[in-house]
């Protein structure tokens, strides 16, 4: 992956596939440490599956026998001396508070740090493909933050789909404005 934002897009797709109604994408920068969290309220995974998702030869897909999403994210953080952690609660074990929490930490001053890239484009791609699920995106840096919560937008839009072109353009503009204030 050329940008971390592509890993984010890829791994967040797993949350949607797990039936999440809300997927949170949280980026926190503190000094030279970047923390990425992807938190969902989907069906969750058993301990055995959590152990095996970092193995490239484990996958839920049926078209071929390899799954590179989590292994590529693990590689991207570990090559900066960072780490990856996954915790998950299955729907069977807790019908109320279930879901998966992926945490990846990166050292941004490491020579092998992959640039973050266009995170807004990934958030927009997720919304375009899954207009009926909710996303909370928050990027924090030096006490300032960029934030987008589709639940708030949905309240205004009612039955107008989130992936309508004009709505997507509004979201793109909103994120761009917020990023200009962040830098």
């Amino acid at each position, binding site marked *: *992956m050329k940008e971390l934002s*592509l890993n984010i897009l890829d791994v967040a*797709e797993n949350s949607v596939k797990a039936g999440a109604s809300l997927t949170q994408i949280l980026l926190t920068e503190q000094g030279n440490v970047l923390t990425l969290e992807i938190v969902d309220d989907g069906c969750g995974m058993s301990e055995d599956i959590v152990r095996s998702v970092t193995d490239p030869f484990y996958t839920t897909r049926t078209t*071929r026998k390899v*799954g590179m999403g989590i292994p590529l994210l693990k590689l991207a953080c570990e090559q900066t001396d960072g780490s990856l952690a996954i915790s998950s609660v299955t729907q069977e074990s807790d019908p109320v508070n279930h879901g998966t929490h992926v945490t990846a930490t990166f050292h941004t001053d490491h020579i092998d740090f992959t640039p973050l890239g266009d995170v807004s484009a990934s958030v927009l*791609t997720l919304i375009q493909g899954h207009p009926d699920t909710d996303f909370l995106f928050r990027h924090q840096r030096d006490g300032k933050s960029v934030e987008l919560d589709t639940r708030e937008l949905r309240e205004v839009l009612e039955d*107008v789909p989130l992936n*309508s072109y004009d709505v997507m353009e509004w979201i793109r503009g909103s994120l761009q*404005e917020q990023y200009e204030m962040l830098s």
Partner: protein
Amino acid sequence: MKSLAELQAIKNRMKDRVVLRDGMEGARVVVGMATCGIAAGARPVLNAFVEGVNKEGLEGKVSVTQTGCIGICQYEPVVEVFEPGKEKVTYVKMNPEKAQEVIEKHLKGGQVVSEYTIGAVAV
């Protein structure tokens, strides 16, 4: 600042159009967005289709959607075009420029861009 009032105005404008979309039976453009597709550059390809379809005024006739791995990862980014009553067309090794050409020639003009289809690229 982009305000929620602005969003409200978009909603009021869109309300009538939503009904039209529900009953449409046009072409469907499906972009493969699994790990393989994303790594090969599917995100800008999807973006080019979403933008191009809107720019050409095709939004009432063409829908752009995403799917997982189609199973031909070596040919990603892969884009499938489904049209009612016609055979599916599979475009492979796509990029935003090729997407623009497909919008103009195929979605607008009705002519399949054969050179980008899997039949022409696969050996």
